[in-house]
């Protein structure tokens, strides 16, 4: 196979040509005849009873077609938006799930919650009509702060308090007893700041209904269109799956926020049949701030016990996780199974106990955002390890090394329910230390001091778990869906290959990476392989893209399907070469037996024009596979951040960042570098700039780019990224996943560098100039 396009080659992304020449097909680019526009009515209150809604004036606007409210969707029997993961409290009881109607019916519970939809001939008319809808609200006292929510009066009628669940993992008694006898205990209070996703393309939906066939079609910004269809069919009950096609065309970034099934596309699809016309809705940036699911928002108290030699004896974490006003699609799983299970980090801590209180507040729902639980876990582990090193006078690198799981320890079972299959954490750390010139840090620090700058260095040796699996275990733990992926490889009669995957690409470059995988496996030219994704009408099934699972799970499904192609092709070739299949080998795109050779293309043609063909074999050369992983994959790495803090202004400049990651085998190193760069920029945003803030009344005060600070090019250094490789032991490609690592490891490294520079552990994310300046000024 050509090394220029096969596995390991830095092939330029074929999709980029259309993206950078303005030929992408995003949802808002699509238009259909008879299309109307939808505008949502959104609550200005964090918590209020909905009174009368009068649309009389609105419907007088020229071009206004309809105004729907929650009463209409409820009367029509539209189901609630479900949460896909049933978490149980430690007493065995089910989580307290508040009903989540697509449009609020009697009460609104966060600012921006939709309570109505206005449909009109044009966007201008829809906006004008929306202005004229008169809604009465009776304002109620909202619950906003994460830490106080559990004790506050319940925001949902019918729930006894605001605690959705009280979850735990690990052995509490053993952990407490180890802490009680530890030579040293480090204690730390940590806040993981609320983030607002801000994908470049805002969410959008274009829904059509064909009265002749009774078919619905929804084109929307989704990371997993099959899940969207499943939920809209089975739970919201818009239409059965065979009458509902969901297409996620080009999607401009998701970072998790487009996994979820939201109110807007749900209501627009339902309403398209009511008005008998297609409806398009595209979120304004202001709406995205209010109504996209937010990320993070944890408050944690952690304790780490060490023995006299510095070995970790126990880790305990008490976390309150803000779930927002409703349980979003996977909101319940993020601060539990995606968080608590990662608290062993890279270390042999023998006793770990974690307790998570998931709480309701009158804020936007919180769900998975790039890393989803794992950045929060890494922040706890890597901050407290760094603090412990400082408190006990140890070098933070040596303390980590002392406690790290060794290469010989794998497979390693943690006290928090995971079995790490493979890794070499020391190798990544060594490489990172070299690239960061750790030995030269003291000189750089001294040089900074001469310029009125305090320099700090911080480490983060993170681990993550990707490709959630296996299905059976996850479903036992409450998951509402399987965690496999589907793939289909269709060799066309003339030998080109169409690949169908249930993964979805919204910036990750699957159209290139997956084509590399299949062309390498089948020995066909890269340009002869086309990847199809994001369409329930073309792809059999899929669970979409999240949790850095696409290559490890979706790519593995394509390998399985390709192997079936080779197996069938071998039988066809054996028949054509008048030999037994056992005598036929498949090498570099050809079936070979002795001195006979048939290309895959020739065999494909024979399968569709079966003149000389095995009598017991069906024609055609197209194979499907579902791949269900036997375990998670465990990417891990070492991140080192170096910062300079300006003593006069408190400005933190991230001056160097080294990331050495072990993603297993790498298909396309250029794409992997890009994924890491993006993740690191988002991690730097969380550590230094971004903060979603609600005021005491539940108003979002960081609702635009004036107040919510996104990282820009001059906020980040030239990242130094490199890799080490221990192949995943249980998937055919030996891959682990690289999509989230940058955002998982980096916040802890950056804050460890800031706290190192300032000589205090008391710095919260984001480390804004104001906060740092106050700290420097002793205020």
């Amino acid at each position, binding site marked *: 196979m050509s090394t220029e396009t096969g596995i390991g080659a830095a092939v330029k992304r074929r999709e980029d040509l259309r993206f950078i020449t303005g030929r992408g097909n995003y949802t808002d680019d699509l238009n259909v005849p008879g299309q109307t526009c939808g505008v949502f009515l959104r609550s*200005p209150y964090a918590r209020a009873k909905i009174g009368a809604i009068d649309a009389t004036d609105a419907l007088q606007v020229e071009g206004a077609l309809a105004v729907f409210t929650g009463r209409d969707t409820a009367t029509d029997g539209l189901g609630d938006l479900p949460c896909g993961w049933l978490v149980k409290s430690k007493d065995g009881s089910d989580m307290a799930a508040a009903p989540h109607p697509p449009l609020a019916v009697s009460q609104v519970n966060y*600012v921006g919650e939709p309570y109505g939809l206005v449909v009109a001939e044009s966007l201008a008319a829809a906006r004008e009509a929306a202005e004229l*809808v*008169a809604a009465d609200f009776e304002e109620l006292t909202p619950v906003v702060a994460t830490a106080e929510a559990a004790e506050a009066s319940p925001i949902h009628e019918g729930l006894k308090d605001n605690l959705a669940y009280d979850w735990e993992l690990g052995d509490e008694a053993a952990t407490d007893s180890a802490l009680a006898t530890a030579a040293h205990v480090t204690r730390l209070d940590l806040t993981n700041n609320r983030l607002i996703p801000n994908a470049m393309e805002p969410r959008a939906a274009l829904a059509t209904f064909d009265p002749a066939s009774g078919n619905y079609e929804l084109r929307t910004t989704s990371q997993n269109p099959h899940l969207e269809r499943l939920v809209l069919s089975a739970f919201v009950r818009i239409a059965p799956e065979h009458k509902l096609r969901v297409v996620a065309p080009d999607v401009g970034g998701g970072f998790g926020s487009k996994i979820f099934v939201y109110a807007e596309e749900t209501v627009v699809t339902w309403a398209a049949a009511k008005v008998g016309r297609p409806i398009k809705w595209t979120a304004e940036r202001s709406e995205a701030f*209010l109504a996209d699911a937010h990320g993070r928002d944890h408050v944690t108290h952690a304790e780490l016990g060490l023995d006299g030699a510095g070995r970790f004896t126990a880790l305990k974490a008490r976390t309150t996780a803000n779930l927002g006003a409703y349980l979003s699609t996977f909101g319940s799983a993020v601060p539990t199974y995606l968080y608590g299970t990662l608290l062993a980090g890279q270390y042999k801590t023998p006793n770990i106990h974690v307790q998570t209180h998931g709480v309701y507040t009158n804020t936007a729902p919180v769900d998975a955002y790039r890393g989803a639980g794992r950045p929060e876990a890494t922040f706890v582990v890597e901050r407290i390890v760094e603090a412990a090193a400082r408190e006990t006078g140890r070098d933070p690198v040596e303390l980590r090394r002392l406690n790290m799981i060794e290469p010989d320890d794998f497979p390693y079972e943690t006290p928090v329910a995971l079995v790490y299959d493979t890794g070499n954490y020391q190798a990544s750390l060594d490489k990172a230390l070299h690239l960061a010139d750790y030995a030269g840090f003291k000189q750089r620090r001294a040089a900074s001091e001469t310029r009125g700058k305090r320099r700090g260095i911080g480490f983060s040796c993170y681990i993550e778990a990707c490709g959630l699996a296996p299905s059976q275990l996850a479903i036992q733990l409450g998951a509402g869906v399987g965690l496999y992926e589907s793939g289909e490889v269709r060799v066309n009669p003339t030998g080109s290959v169409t690949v169908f995957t249930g993964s979805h690409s919204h910036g990750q470059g699957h159209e290139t990476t997956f084509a590399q995988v299949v062309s390498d496996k089948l020995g066909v030219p890269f340009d002869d392989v086309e990847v199809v994704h994001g369409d329930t009408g073309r792809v059999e099934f899929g669970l979409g893209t999240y949790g850095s699972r696409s290559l490890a799970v979706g790519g593995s499904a394509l390998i399985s399907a390709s192997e079936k192609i080779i197996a069938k092709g071998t039988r066809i070739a054996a028949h054509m070469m008048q030999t037994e299949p056992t005598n036929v080998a498949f090498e570099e795109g050809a079936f070979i037996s002795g001195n006979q050779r048939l290309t895959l293309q020739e065999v494909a043609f024979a399968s569709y024009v079966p003149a000389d063909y095995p009598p017991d074999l069906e024609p055609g050369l197209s194979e499907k596979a579902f791949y269900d992983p036997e375990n998670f994959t465990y990417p891990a790495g070492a991140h080192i951040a170096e910062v300079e803090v300006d003593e006069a202004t408190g400005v933190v400049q991230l001056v160097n960042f080294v990331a050495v990651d072990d993603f297993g085998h790498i298909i396309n190193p250029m794409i992997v570098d890009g994924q890491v760069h993006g993740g690191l920029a988002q991690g730097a945003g969380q550590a230094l700039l971004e903060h979603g803030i609600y*005021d005491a009344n539940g*108003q979002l*005060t960081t609702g635009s780019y004036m107040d919510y600070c996104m990282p820009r090019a001059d906020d980040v250094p030239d990242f130094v990224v490199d890799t080490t490789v221990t192949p995943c032991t249980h998937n055919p490609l030996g891959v682990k996943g690289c999509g989230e690592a940058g955002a998982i490891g980096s916040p802890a490294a950056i804050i460890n560098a800031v706290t190192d520079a300032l000589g205090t552990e008391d710095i919260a994310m984001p480390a804004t100039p104001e906060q740092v300046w106050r700290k420097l000024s002793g205020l």
Partner: protein
Amino acid sequence: MEQSGEHLIPVERATVWRSLNDPVVLARCISGCQSMEQLADDRFAATVKARVGPVRATFEVALTLTDIHPPESYVLQVEVKGKAAGFGKGLAEVALAEAEDGTTLLRYSVAGRVGGKLAQIGARLIDSAARKMADDFFSALHEALDPAADRQQSANPS
């Protein structure tokens, strides 16, 4: 949002007090005021076109007077509704003190909050917008009541 201030108005207290209860004067002094209606002795309804940063809307304003101590002080409850633009709620304490030469010192303090788009986009602009509205109001009131200003106006009818 909280702010306070004081203005010296060059007429006697009883005149100032009357003006602060007169819908015609109030309508003249609130910039962007499109209508002002007295619903009861202590209640007014107004329509005001205003702008806070990028948020521009016509607001329905309900004013209720409480703790009325003529001619010294009252508390003004303000409720502002801007539909898609959001809402505002506030309390303004207004006190009049007799000052030298028959003038009146007006002191006020306002505490309020906003919601919806006003809070989302206008949060950091709301203080300056409120300050400007208050300044405009008092300079307009000043002008409306100042006999010198009146004379100037009649002398220069242009």
